[in-house]
């Protein structure tokens, strides 16, 4: 049998569609398994107005279940003459077991009355009508609301429920809405509800202007948008996030080209693109030099009656937005960037100087938050940093300073680029150190000041720019230091096994680049072959302190002493590892031929000292004891 579930809603937020379409198939698959219902596949799709859940080849009924039930102890179930007592009879009767099929079973709890029962599987329809409403109300939306008297919570009001198992309606009710075999098409183009069947459902959606698969909507938008951009001699300013947003705003996307007065191109194109993207959700079009062209692409929610009028209407809105942007920009230009500084960001400046006493860095730190008080950034917070750099450039600030202002927030998201120059990177670092040490550390999942992001960004900048910094020297608060190191570890764990990351942390001693170098060297090294012997060394050394000892005499220990002595402690970890690998056969022979804990106390101490030397060299690269499984 096949199941179609369609949850009809008032327009869902994009994030809610995402959460639901991820949760529903995963959870339903588990629920069906535990309900003993087999199926071939589950799929889920979403549009702003409906969530779809499809199950293919679902078995018609649950598998039967054989199980054993345990009852009261025999001394309670039977009387002295071996007759069933009321308690014994009651147990059997409640489970519909005949006295003949009951038996005695002995376990560690004693001997009890027991019976095998056979549970006949129920029809899938009955199981689903209980399971589905619960499943639907379990979707973990970030935000939910109430809208009617049962006070049911969902991301937006549920207005219809279509639920067909083959062609039978699976009956249930949520928030006063009863499931049925009816659905509707596009809100404006085909709003009437109609009866559908398994055979007609998908055709119905298609013919009634609902593209239920987001990936199809995205592909359609992209194809048409590329075409439109090309038609005016440019290319689409591709934007995956915007594409996702607009694909989740409509059931039937219809990209349309609009244009604006080229006069507005005298405003920095960052402002224009931001207006189009953030406020209007329009795509922008660039020429081959990445300069903005005076066009935009709207993704309408239906095939319009008159495209030109629709484009003109949108252009009018954009014009008003641009006029406002121009107003703020021109107002801002009446002042110098320094005029916007109400109070110099002294703590940030101190951090910058702590990192590097460079006049350009100092200047950049002084200026970097000034643009937060400008009119443009007040209207478009996304343009922080960018506006500062535009105004700084107009004020004739040094190019390095201008660049640093522009890149101070990089990396802005996971996978974003890090600042391109040393000064930019140091400014970004100083800003993050300031945030991390100034704000309260987050508890739970909330992170209002973005401290996790700050710590991850800090890690990525240090690693990308190979800054040799000891974080312990920089961050005096142990809790903050621990917080940062945990995020740094998280960054390494994205690409490295946990054993390697943990084995190298102590040796790196709060120097992230040194940590990375050790990880790199260790990953290319066959540590499995040597870990056990170094672990043995480290165990012995941990238990025995070093002190003045006697003279070594056995050939194997003298060979080991020589080899250890020749290993130079350095930052060339690959070289050190190959030298440490050479110690392995020597150590094996040493342990085979020599008794470390000999009764000769002076000799014993000499051997312990030798092992301590081995341990000292090994620990400089990694804690091998953490590398054994």
């Amino acid at each position, binding site marked *: 049998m096949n199941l179609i579930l369609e949850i009809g809603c008032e327009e869902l937020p994009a994030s809610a569609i995402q959460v639901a379409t991820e949760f529903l198939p995963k959870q339903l698959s588990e629920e069906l398994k535990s309900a003993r219902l087999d199926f071939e596949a589950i799929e889920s799709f979403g549009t702003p107005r409906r969530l779809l859940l499809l199950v293919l080849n679902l078995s018609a009924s649950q598998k039967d279940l054989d199980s054993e039930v345990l009852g009261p102890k025999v001394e309670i179930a039977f009387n002295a003459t071996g007759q069933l007592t009321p308690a014994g009879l009651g147990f059997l009767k409640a489970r519909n077991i005949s006295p003949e099929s009951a038996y005695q079973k002995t376990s560690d709890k004693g001997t009890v009355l027991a019976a095998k029962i056979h549970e006949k599987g129920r029809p899938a329809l009955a199981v689903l009508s209980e399971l589905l409403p619960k499943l639907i109300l379990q979707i973990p939306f970030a935000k939910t*609301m*109430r809208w009617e008297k049962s006070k049911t919570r969902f991301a937006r*009001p549920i207005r219809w429920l279509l639920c067909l198992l083959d062609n039978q309606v699976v009956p249930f009710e949520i928030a006063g809405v009863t499931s049925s075999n009816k659905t509707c098409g596009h809100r*404006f183009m085909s709003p009437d509800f109609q009866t559908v069947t398994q055979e007609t459902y998908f055709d119905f959606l298609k013919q009634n202007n609902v593209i239920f698969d987001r990936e199809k909507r995205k592909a359609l938008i992209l194809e048409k948008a590329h075409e439109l951009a090309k038609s005016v001699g440019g290319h689409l300013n591709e934007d995956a996030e915007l594409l996702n947003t607009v694909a989740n705003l409509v059931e039937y996307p219809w990209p349309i080209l609009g244009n604006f007065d080229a006069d507005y191109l005298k405003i920095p194109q960052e402002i224009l693109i931001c207006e189009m993207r953030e406020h209007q959700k329009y795509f922008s079009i660039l020429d081959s030099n990445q300069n903005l062209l005076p066009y935009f692409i709207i993704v309408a929610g239906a095939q319009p009656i008159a495209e030109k009028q629709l484009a003109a*209407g949108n252009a009018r809105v954009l014009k008003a937005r641009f006029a406002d942007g121009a107003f703020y920009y021109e107002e801002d230009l009446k002042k110098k960037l320094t005029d916007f500084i109400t109070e110099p960001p002294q703590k940030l400046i101190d951090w910058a100087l702590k990192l590097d006493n460079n006049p350009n860095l100092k200047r950049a730190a002084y200026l970097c938050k000034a643009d937060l008080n400008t009119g443009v950034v007040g209207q478009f917070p996304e343009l922080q940093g960018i506006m500062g750099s535009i105004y700084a450039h107009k004020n004739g600030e040094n190019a390095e300073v201008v660049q640093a202002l522009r890149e101070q927030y990089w990396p802005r998201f996971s996978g974003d680029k890090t600042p391109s120059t040393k000064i930019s990177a140091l400014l970004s670092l100083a800003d993050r150190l300031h945030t991390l040490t100034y704000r309260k550390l987050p508890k739970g999942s909330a992170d209002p000041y973005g401290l996790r992001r700050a710590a991850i960004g800090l890690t990525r900048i240090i690693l990308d720019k190979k800054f040799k910094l000891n974080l312990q020297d920089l961050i005096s608060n142990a809790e903050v230091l621990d917080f940062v190191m945990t995020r740094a570890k998280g960054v390494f764990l994205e690409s490295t096994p946990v054993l390697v990351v943990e084995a190298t942390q102590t040796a790196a001693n709060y120097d992230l680049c040194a940590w990375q170098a050790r990880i790199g060297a260790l990953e290319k090294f066959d540590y499995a072959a040597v870990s056990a012997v170094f672990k043995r060394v480290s165990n012995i050394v941990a238990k025995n302190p070093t002190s003045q000892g006697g003279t070594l005499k056995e050939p194997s220990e003298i060979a080991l002493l020589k080899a250890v002595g020749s290993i130079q402690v350095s930052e060339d970890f690959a070289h050190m590892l190959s030298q440490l690998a050479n110690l392995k056969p020597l150590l094996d022979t040493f342990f085979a031929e020599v008794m470390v804990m000999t009764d000769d106390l002076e000799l014993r101490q000499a051997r312990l000292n030798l092992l301590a030397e081995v341990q000292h060299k090994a620990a400089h690269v990694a804690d091998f004891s953490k590398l054994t499984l």
Partner: protein
Amino acid sequence: MSKAQTFQEVILRLQQFWSDKGCIIAQPTDVEVGAGTLNKHTFLRVLGPEPWNVAYVESCRRPTDGRYGENPNRLQHYYQFQVILKPAPNNPQELYLESLRAIGLDPIEHDIRFVEDDWEHPGLGAAGLGWEVWAQGMEVTQFTYFQQCGGLELDEVACELTYGLERLAMYVQDVDNLYDLVWAILPSGQKVTYGDIHKQDEFEWSHHNFTHANIEMLARHFKDYEAQAKVLLEQKLVLPAYEYALKCSHLFNLLDARGAVQAIDRPLYIGQIRDLAKQCASSYLESRQELGFPMLVSAAS
């Protein structure tokens, strides 16, 4: 439906539409407010279990949005059309779309879209979930299922529709500059525009808001009105207390427009207004309870 020819016809048709749907047609408040939500017909009436369906025009003031009458899209004084449906019906979106058709706006032609927007007014302890409704890329209505007001979870979820009248009328009349909107066509055929009625206001009030409003006086009045509101609350005179709270809110907006609110004082002002709003809300709810929620009773009989 034919297009509404004038600004006043948009209002008249919306009033007729919502009156036909069972709304009381109320009138704007006579205290300065930043939005129709602040009118007691919304802010207080959404509290408690009593049913309440109302529609009214609100005259709104946002001092910082003044542009001296020079910007074709921005005003420091503008009009909202506010609808409250409590309890929320099961088809508010359909009703809303029908109301757009009633003023001559076709949803496909104007690419009407419901774009997620969770409305929140921390200063009033009010929050809801819903959308900005877009027409050709412009927000023309705020559509909210009220969940909380005055810091109180609502017994009955109310549906709030806030139409931006100038923006809607600009689409209906297809004009680029709001001052060109035709407000009325007189029997003589003479057209009276939005500019004829409001341009001088915008010029003078912008100068007042940004330059001439007396900061020291505004701050003093804020203190006086806040104190008065508290006294009235103690006397359980919640409706007068609420008006004084509204006055405080407007004075704060004026101080803000004058650039006289230091960053450090902002949370203080907002906190004072929020406290008053919350006390008014819970005090109003109590007073209705003491009266036995009369409108609940009359709805049932």
